[in-house]
């Protein structure tokens, strides 16, 4: 859209349209209200005010809505329904992009034209109490402020007391014009225990009391002759049935909007609140305060609010609003003349001028008012049309930068794919002809070509793309990378063709694919293709559950085939007549010991059972997210004992599964660490201590969590010490294995502290499956490195969803970022949150490293290299295909609500996978050094 920092000023406002020669036009419309109090209650759902909950817990508000002089609406928020973008929408009237979600954690100063800036420029004095996001967005706008941090989700009383304590003194003062209050408690209750929690009622009662206090103070201080005051009650977003927000479901986007002022007509009967957009609040407030509408606002004013003013004023307001939208339309749409709203606006402007002429001539007939009302409808139509065109548009895409990025990732993927035969060969060494291509002539030609294209694109038109705004050094680096990669690709392809011509079609050595290979390939390909459909992105967990189920059945069939192979001499007709006595003989294993066989047979079944149980632990996705699941059952107050037993059992199981390959020191550290995990959860109040059944004070558990962190660091330290010793000094593979396992157990311990207690079974089950599979399946059935890598990757994906994640931002468990921290510290919080979110894929990837390095012997010297290669390929194919898909689908209806969050997840996952691959390569170093 138009440039960010420019702001509308009073002098930009259009004059009242006139066709005659009567220069009687007011520049600025007079404000309608004296003082405005905006009460923003975070996560206030529409039914908390207008529904049965409102009737029960907000009696005063309900009374005002039904019988008071008020206007009430349901304001629809746009996804992403996260606080910061919503505050932006309320104050700028624009529709923020998805980047704002990421910025939500670290909100920078808002430079766009906004209501507060306009109010300050007009000399209004603003006071703010509440969420400190506002303070960060508008650092110099408030005469007085007190920000409270929104990061301690478990605190829902202090945050609101901090706001309310200023209220009495402020309401008694006369030195302010706008008061903004942002209450966070309700949102925190939602995150803690959902919209049906018993804590919601008292909180709503508290809010109702506050509204009553403000309203009575405002009305009592209204003086005869002065302008009336306005009280606005709104929510920034709603709350889903699970209590979170961020998505686009109805309870998340529907928020109440109640405007209360003595200026409005008193209502006689309860009416159903009408529906408006959240962005409509801005033009309404701006015009009501006599301020210019912010430049990028796409909203249209809420007409009922202006009903009590004269027809001339109403038309004036509508004219101002449509003029502003028309300017924005001109700025942002290339062929704006074709838009429906444009013509409507110009027609309305013309008839407005005629109407004004008649009006100023002193005509007061019925005809004039009828004409005026017709004009009103005309303006409203134009407003609606322009507003909807603008909101659909959602900004332009910077195609040039997108294409450059796409070319880069495609090149990386092609290099990976071209390197496949070498990477999966016996020595697993890939030679990338980087230096030779850097010194070749085509490289320089390409480089010059790319540079000239860049200059051409950036100088042509007034395109304001990201790449053109970058410094030249970075752009040159990107151009160099692109051309070098292209040369590398060409030379690799040429080499491949040459060697292909020499050896002929020798490499098709017809070993064929087994059913398992077919399944692994079709499953991976199918998942990648399914990402093009928004439903499959929303329900991606279903894909993975389905795939690993099929995988387990395929493995089961493989195991059966190994242990129940029919005898070779089994070919005569008598086989048809096998009687019952023969059966045990026939069913007896051909190889392997009895117990081994049964354990191998039961492993896939155990995995299947585990997966089925974990699947019902957390309902994720969109369509079935509302169904009851075990985590809700466990997290309710009355099942605290069950939750405690379950998490304690999981911790014990984790200990027994992990300890067997650790050194003694690590064993003790692990045991103490897991004990610390339990006491941390007890301190936070999630679980019960067996000897302390009486409820006690809930603390932040900082001491306990830090105690666990110390053990995590200790285990990681001993592990890396072993690793370093094995890498540098002795090249002892046993020591290396133990070191790797210790690093792995450190990661497990960190996961245990970060995961919520009801998710501890996920961790325990993943360890159980890993142990059983490694012991009885992968080694016994001689799956090669590629197969095990794919299986690990699939399980990693499935466990990502088992722990309750989805492709929706709302399911990220931010509370993990505060484990063991007194206050919000950006870097550790982001690291811990990312770690706990991706703990599933990460654990499986780490297990893959441990497994492959323990399997790495003389027979499979390059298995680590193969595993690393497969892992990189498995991660890059979906990412690259998804980037291309999203670019192609950029005008899709769900691009912001479904596809871009998934892109964010993919990017983050790729980052995690990169770290894992670097670790892989480091572990593989000594193999390369040896060979």
């Amino acid at each position, binding site marked *: 859209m138009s440039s960010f920092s420019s702001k509308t000023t009073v002098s930009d406002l259009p004059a009242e349209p006139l066709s005659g020669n009567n220069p009687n036009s007011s520049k600025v419309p007079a404000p309608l209200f004296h003082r405005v109090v905006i009460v923003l209650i975070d996560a206030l759902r529409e039914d908390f005010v207008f529904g049965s909950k409102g009737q029960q817990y907000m009696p005063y508000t309900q009374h005002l809505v039904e019988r008071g002089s008020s206007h009430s609406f349901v304001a629809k928020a746009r996804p992403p329904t996260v606080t910061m973008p919503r505050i932006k929408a309320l104050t700028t009237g624009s529709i923020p992009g998805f980047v704002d979600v990421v910025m939500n954690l670290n909100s920078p100063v808002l430079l766009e034209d906004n209501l507060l800036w306009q109010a300050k420029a007009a000399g209004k004095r603003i006071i703010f109490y509440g969420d400190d996001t506002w303070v960060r967005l508008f650092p110099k706008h408030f005469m007085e402020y007190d920000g409270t941090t929104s990061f301690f989700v478990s605190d829902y009383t202090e945050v609101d007391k901090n706001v309310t304590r200023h209220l009495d003194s402020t309401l008694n003062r006369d030195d302010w014009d706008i008061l903004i209050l942002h209450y966070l408690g309700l949102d925190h209750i939602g995150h803690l225990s959902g919209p049906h929690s018993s804590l919601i009622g008292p909180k709503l009662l508290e809010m109702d009391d506050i509204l009553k206090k403000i309203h009575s103070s405002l009305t009592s201080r209204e003086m005869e002759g002065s302008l009336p005051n306005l009280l606005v009650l709104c929510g920034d977003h709603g709350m889903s049935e699970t209590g979170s927000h961020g998505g686009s479901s109805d309870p998340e986007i529907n928020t109440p909007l109640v405007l209360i002022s003595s200026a409005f007509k008193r209502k006689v009967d309860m009416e159903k609140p009408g529906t408006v957009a959240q962005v409509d609040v801005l033009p309404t407030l701006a015009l009501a305060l006599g301020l210019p509408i912010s430049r990028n606002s796409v909203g249209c004013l809420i007409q009922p609010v202006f009903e009590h003013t004269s027809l001339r004023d109403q038309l004036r307001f509508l004219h101002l609003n449509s003029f502003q939208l028309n300017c924005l339309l001109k700025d942002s749409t290339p062929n704006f003349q074709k838009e429906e709203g444009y013509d409507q606006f110009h027609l309305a402007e013309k008839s407005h001028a005629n109407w004004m002429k008649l009006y100023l001539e002193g005509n007061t007939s019925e005809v004039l008012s009828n004409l005026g009302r017709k004009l009103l409808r005309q303006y409203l139509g134009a407003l609606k049309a322009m507003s909807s065109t603008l909101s659909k548009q959602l900004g332009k895409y910077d195609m040039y930068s997108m294409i450059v990025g796409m070319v880069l990732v495609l090149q990386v993927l092609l290099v990976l794919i071209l390197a496949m035969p070498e990477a999966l060969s016996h020595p697993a060494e890939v030679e990338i002809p980087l230096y030779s291509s850097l010194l070749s002539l085509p490289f320089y030609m390409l480089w010059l070509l790319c540079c000239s294209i860049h200059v051409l694109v950036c100088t042509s038109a007034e395109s304001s793309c990201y790449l053109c705004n970058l410094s030249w050094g970075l752009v040159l680096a990107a151009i160099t990378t692109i051309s070098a990669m292209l040369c590398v690709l060409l030379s690799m392809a040429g080499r491949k063709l040459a060697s292909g011509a020499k050896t002929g079609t020798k490499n098709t050595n017809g070993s064929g694919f087994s059913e398992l290979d077919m399944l692994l390939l079709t499953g991976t390909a199918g998942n990648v293709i399914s990402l093009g*459909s*928004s*439903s*499959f992105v*929303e*329900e991606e967990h*279903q*894909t993975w*559950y*389905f795939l690993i*189920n*099929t995988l387990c*059945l395929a493995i089961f069939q493989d195991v*059966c*085939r190994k242990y*129940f*192979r*029919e005898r070779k001499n*089994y*070919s*005569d*007709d008598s*086989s*048809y*007549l*096998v009687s019952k006595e*023969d*059966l045990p003989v*026939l*069913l007896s294993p051909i190889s392997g010991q009895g117990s081994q066989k049964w354990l191998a047979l039961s492993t896939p079944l155990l995995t*299947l*059972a585990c*997966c*089925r149980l974990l*699947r019902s632990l957390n309902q994720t*996705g*969109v*369509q079935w997210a509302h169904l009851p699941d075990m985590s809700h059952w466990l997290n309710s107050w009355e099942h605290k004992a069950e939750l405690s037993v379950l998490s304690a059992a999981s911790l014990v199981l984790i200990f027994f599964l992990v300890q067997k390959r650790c050194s003694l020191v690590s064993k003790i550290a692990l045991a103490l660490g897991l004990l610390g995990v339990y006491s941390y959860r007890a301190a936070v109040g999630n679980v019960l201590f067996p000897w302390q059944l009486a409820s006690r004070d809930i603390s932040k558990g900082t001491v306990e969590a830090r105690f666990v962190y110390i053990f995590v660091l200790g285990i990681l330290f001993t592990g890396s010490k072993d690793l370093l010793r094995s890498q540098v000094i002795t090249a002892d593979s046993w020591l290396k294995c133990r070191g790797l396992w210790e690093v792995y157990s450190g990661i497990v311990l960190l996961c245990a502290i970060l995961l919520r207690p009801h998710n501890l079974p996920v961790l325990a089950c993943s360890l159980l499956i890993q142990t059983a599979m490694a012991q009885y399946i992968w080694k016994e059935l001689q799956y090669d490195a590629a197969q095990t890598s794919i299986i690990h990757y699939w399980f990693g994906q499935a466990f990502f969803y088992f722990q309750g994640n989805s492709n929706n931002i709302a399911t990220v468990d931010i509370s993990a970022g505060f484990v063991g921290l007194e206050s919000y510290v950006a870097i550790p919080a982001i690291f811990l949150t990312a770690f706990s979110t991706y703990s599933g894929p990460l654990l499986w990837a780490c297990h893959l490293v441990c497994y492959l390095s323990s399997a790495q012997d003389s027979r499979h010297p390059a298995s680590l290299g193969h595993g690393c290669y497969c892992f990189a390929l498995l991660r890059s194919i979906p990412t690259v295909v998804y980037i291309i898909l999203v670019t192609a689908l950029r005008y899709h209806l769900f691009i912001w609500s479904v596809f871009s969050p998934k892109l964010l997840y993919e990017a983050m996952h790729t980052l995690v996978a990169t770290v894992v691959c670097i670790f892989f390569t480091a572990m593989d170093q000594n193999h390369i050094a040896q060979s």
Partner: protein
Amino acid sequence: MRDVEINIKGMVSAHTIIAFSIFIATLMPHFFVENYSVYGTHLAWLYSVSGSVAVVNITIFWLLGISPPTKKHTLSYKVSRLVKSCLHFVASCLFFHLVLVLYGATLLEAPLETFSLAVLLSCFTTLRCLCALGPNVQAWIRVFSRDGAMSIWDTCLQITTAGTLIGTWLGAFPIPLDWDRPWQAWPISCSLGATFGFLMGLLVAPGWIYWHRKQLTYKCK
């Protein structure tokens, strides 16, 4: 070789009859069930198809005499075989039900739908095995292991079973889509997928066997 070709002809006619019986079973309930439609009264369609496929299969295998020869012809032996077959069939229904639950079918909600699908799958797969091989698990394992087929009927069993299972598997894909179509309800898309896969199997099996008749050297016959 001649022998195989004659057998294939028999298989083609048998498969035509089975396919035809499925179509009849789809149409017949119109006369008995009110407001019948494949989506609306899905279970009626499901039972009708399962029943007709079961009856037609048993009749065909009995008439063609493909069922394994029995040692004794005493009544008690036949009865015990029958009982055993029934038990196998029930066990297979339970097995399919379990697998469907593992795939994510709800355990407590709609158990009847899940079980009906399991019955349909058993009719398409287990029942044919029972008819062709008898209640003999060992022979089943032989047929379904690699290179275990010893007659064209074994190969046919492999193909139709694989077709049914793959059809069911693929039939689950439309369920998560948000199209809100009637056939997305559980278990309609899966049972339609299974039927379609079974029909494809019936269609493909004779052709495939004919095509590969030179490679398929069965050890007996």
